[in-house]
């Protein structure tokens, strides 16, 4: 449905946003797991929760910007591959976008439903209001849904990274290289 021909590579904006998004998602998954399962003392845990919430809201804004950029600029043509591989890659990429948004919104819902209402201060700069219709009795369900979305992201990010490595090491095409170096 695109009228523009696919560009030869990703823009600098797309490359930076992809790298930043990946790093933040990696940090969020690591923090999220650690603050719930590592059994650190409560002070560290509290700080990690606040950082996790701050990073989540920044990533939500970045992802929205990234999707807006993606809508304005079409993706480069995928490297030649069997149709099922291209379809799988597209599905994983789409699901990563969707789940990123969903996981963060669910996280926002968890914070809103929390029976211990800790204000969400994004890096101490401003306070994010609670979502409407949030109730403490929905807290456990919200947390489970947020966790499920996070694990799904971890699995899909693994599949996505394996795909990129396969392109680089097996097919020896420029799929990974052009995601790291923007087109000139």
């Amino acid at each position: 449905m695109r009228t523009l021909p696919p560009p030869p590579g990703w823009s600098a904006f797309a490359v930076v946003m992809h790298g930043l998004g990946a790093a933040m998602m990696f940090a969020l998954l690591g923090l999220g797991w650690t603050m719930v399962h590592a059994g650190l003392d409560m002070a560290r845990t509290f700080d990690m929760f606040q950082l996790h919430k701050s990073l989540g809201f920044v990533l939500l804004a970045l992802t929205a910007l990234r999707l807006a950029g993606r809508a304005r600029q079409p993706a480069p043509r995928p490297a030649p591959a069997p149709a099922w591989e291209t379809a799988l890659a597209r599905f994983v990429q789409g699901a990563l976008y969707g789940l990123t948004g969903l996981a963060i919104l669910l996280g926002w819902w968890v914070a809103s439903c929390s029976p211990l209402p800790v204000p969400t201060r994004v890096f101490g700069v401003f306070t994010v209001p609670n979502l409407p219709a949030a109730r403490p009795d929905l807290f456990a369900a919200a947390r489970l849904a947020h966790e499920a979305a996070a694990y799904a992201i971890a699995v899909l990010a693994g599949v996505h990274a394996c795909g990129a490595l396969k392109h680089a090491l097996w097919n020896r095409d420029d799929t990974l290289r052009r995601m790291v170096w923007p087109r000139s």
Partner: protein
Amino acid sequence: MSKSLYPAPGRRLAALAFAAAATMACPAQSVSRWSIDPARTQIAFEIDAVGYPRTHGEFRKFDGRIAIDFEHPDRSRVAFRVDSSSVDVGSAAFNDYLRSVAFLNDEKFPEVNFVSTSVEKLDETRVRVTGDLTLLGVTKPLTVEVVVRREGEGGRQRLVFGAETHIDRLEFGMNSGYPIVSRDVDLKISTTALDR
């Protein structure tokens, strides 16, 4: 380095009276006044939460007065004043949250107070202190068993007190997070008093 002046079997609070009185060189007065040593005082608390680690915290600013009548232990008095804003759980953001209206509400209630109403000697090393605890403007009775130990030889005399108790925070209207955050708050107070 603590060492009792008295061998264990003969150690009595009454005996302390003579030593304290002699130290102060005013044997006529049976009530001795002690000031707490902030460097050797810890007002700590612990609280559980379901699915979260136990929270350990302390109050850093406080003062206290202790008056001991070794001949009539029941006439002894103790009063503690704790600065709510001095709560410290090891995280600045968490401290701010605990100071907020959700918990200590330090702007409206800057102090937590304990004033004894009666002191009962249980044995040579233990006393039961009953008093009123005021938290969030609500005053409730609190009974604490206190272990007393004497320290210091030659120089200034010291009395070391240790007490553990717990309060039900719901009684004081501190409801935030219940039942995820438990209603019981353990208190651990240790202090050293120096004779004045």
